[in-house]
């Protein structure tokens, strides 16, 4: 006799009509709410759609795309930001080839975005074929970089080193140039503007503030009283002051203290303010992660004879940082948006350029909505993308989680 195991199926999901009856029209009040909600959504979508398709006038954006990208960067020197973009893009592709899934989505998204950008019909007077071609090459370069990185010859630390060298050269030498150079004539940062400033401040702020923040977090837990006291003092002071104040401090007060010939560039001063501000918040986020690591982990590492430095570097930090990815990325997203505050110290970031463009033509005054909507869209795309990338990173790092 064979034992019959009866398989019980889970209940079938309700049919759409049944579902609607049950959830949307179960009684007169729910029916009323449903109707109100539907009509509200309908009118919003219709109004917005009609405005976007027929009323909205995107001329400020389509006429001055390059202004939004690089500000007043001399047009005859545009090959420099262009080449910088291509180099970075190639490195993104290589990172994808080397680190695979950690960068994959990022790289594909970026390639698609730039490719689409190249295909948008824009004023050919300003958005020259050369610029269009540059963007068009980007997806191909990402793929080329991917293949190169995928060969297996290049290691992770090679790419990291390449990134570091490239970014430093681009930011400190290639884009600003030298005063008396014929190939790379100086382009003062006052001429820089738009997306390039926003990205520079955001990337610079993130890359520089992260290690400082980690060190401060470790310092706050240090057994050396001087280090601990300094870290606490630094973190609490900076966290107690608004970013606007810090930016003012660095752009105005710092200039007063330093002799005029050793003037630090105002963009660098703004970046310093952002870095310091962000580092303090990073430190507190990382500290949260450090505290979540069980004492047993440290004891086991000690029992194995590892030094304190090795314990921190191999056992505590890797686990703590993985725990705080969501909060760190959240903080970096707000840092990215906070870079708009540099407008108050006279730097034209993306938002500043948006404002400036409105004054270029008397006709544009009534086009504020379009311009600010466009700026908002750019910020949204980057912010959403960061959040998306962080989810991918969490998933990829989730392997073997306790």
């Amino acid at each position, binding site marked *: 006799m064979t034992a019959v195991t009866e398989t019980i199926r889970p209940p079938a999901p309700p049919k759409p009509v049944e579902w609607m009856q049950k959830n949307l029209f179960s009684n007169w009040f729910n029916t009323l709410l449903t109707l109100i909600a539907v009509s509200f959504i309908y009118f919003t979508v219709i109004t917005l759609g009609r405005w976007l398709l027929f009323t909205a006038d995107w001329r400020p954006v389509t006429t001055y795309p390059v202004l939004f990208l690089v500000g007043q960067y001399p047009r005859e020197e545009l090959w420099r930001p262009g080449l910088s973009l291509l180099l970075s893009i190639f490195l993104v592709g290589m990172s994808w080839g080397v680190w695979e899934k950690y960068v994959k989505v990022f790289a594909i998204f970026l390639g698609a975005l730039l490719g689409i950008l190249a295909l948008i019909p824009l004023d050919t007077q300003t958005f020259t074929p050369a610029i269009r071609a540059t963007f068009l090459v980007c997806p191909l370069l990402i793929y080329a970089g991917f293949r190169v990185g995928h060969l297996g010859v290049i290691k992770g630390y090679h790419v990291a080193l390449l990134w570091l060298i490239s970014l430093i050269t681009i930011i400190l030498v290639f884009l600003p140039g030298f005063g008396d150079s014929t190939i790379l004539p100086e382009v003062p940062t006052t001429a820089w503007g738009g997306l390039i400033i926003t990205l520079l401040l955001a990337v610079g702020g993130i890359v520089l503030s992260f290690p400082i923040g980690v060190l401060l977090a470790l310092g706050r837990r240090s057994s050396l009283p001087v280090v601990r006291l300094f870290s606490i003092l630094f973190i609490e002071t900076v966290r107690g002051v608004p970013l606007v104040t810090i930016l003012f401090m660095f752009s105005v007060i710092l200039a007063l203290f330093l002799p005029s010939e050793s003037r630090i560039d105002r963009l660098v001063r703004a970046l310093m303010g952002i870095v310091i501000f962000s580092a303090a918040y990073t430190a507190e986020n990382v500290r949260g992660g450090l505290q979540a690591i069980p004492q047993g982990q440290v004891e*086991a590492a*000690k*029992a*194995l004879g590892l030094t304190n430095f090795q314990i921190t570097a191999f*056992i505590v930090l890797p686990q703590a940082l993985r725990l705080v990815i969501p909060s760190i990325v959240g903080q970096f997203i707000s840092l990215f948006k906070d870079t708009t505050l540099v407008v108050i110290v006279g730097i034209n970031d993306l938002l500043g350029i948006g404002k400036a463009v409105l004054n270029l033509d008397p006709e544009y005054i009534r086009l504020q909505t379009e311009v600010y909507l466009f700026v908002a869209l750019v910020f949204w795309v980057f912010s959403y993308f960061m959040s998306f990338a962080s989810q991918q990173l969490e998933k990829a790092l989730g*392997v*073997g*989680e306790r």
Partner: protein
Amino acid sequence: MTENIPQEQEPMIKCRDVHKWYSHFHALRGISLEVAKSEVIVIFGPSGSGKSTFIRILNRLEEHQRGQVIVDGIELTHDVRNIERVRAETGMVFQQFNLFPHLTVMQNITLSPIWVRKWPQEEAEELAMKLLTRVGIPEQAHKFPSQLSGGQQQRVAIARALAMQPKIMLFDEPTSALDPEMIKEVLDVMVELAKSGMTIVAVTHEMGFARAVANRMIFFDNGEIVEQGTPEQIFNNPQSDRTKLFLSQILRQ
């Protein structure tokens, strides 16, 4: 078994009048103990008796405040170099395994040979595979700890401790966090280790293990050594009333 302990050598562990306070709580009240090379010591006693504190003092996870602790001829003081040397000579296995969850089994085991002993990676991995074979789970080398059962995790922890080729192994309640069906697989490894001539100090209530391999059993209560002797003496003829009471409680199960 007891007669085989070589007495002519310098003891591996020498403790003299060791005291430890947690603020005002007197956790260890003058422990004196010598452990010879290849000796297997089982420490048992009620919870809060100081047995875990004592074993953690032996590799300086806890500091003693009075007395003297000498491990393999090295005195444990505030001197960091001495502490690191002692830790490199002693392996420790914890109740909660304390494997590193972000590293694979292989990386868990090779971490300290590579970074403390400065071995080349291939050599360390070769040793790790040998040790994993010894504890019976060579096929798990490239998994993460969370993918293993409790018994397997504890065996990895033993392999990790052995990777430093220690002279002394410390076990701090190694089977207390395990499901009953997994205790045996860990004890088997410990028995094999004891028979191979390793010096072992184990805090455990596994009386079967004690009976099988212990040279000496030590009963802790209230931060003191109440009684010590061979397993036969302790099980068949305990002297102190506290020992009798405790044994009757744990053996009744």
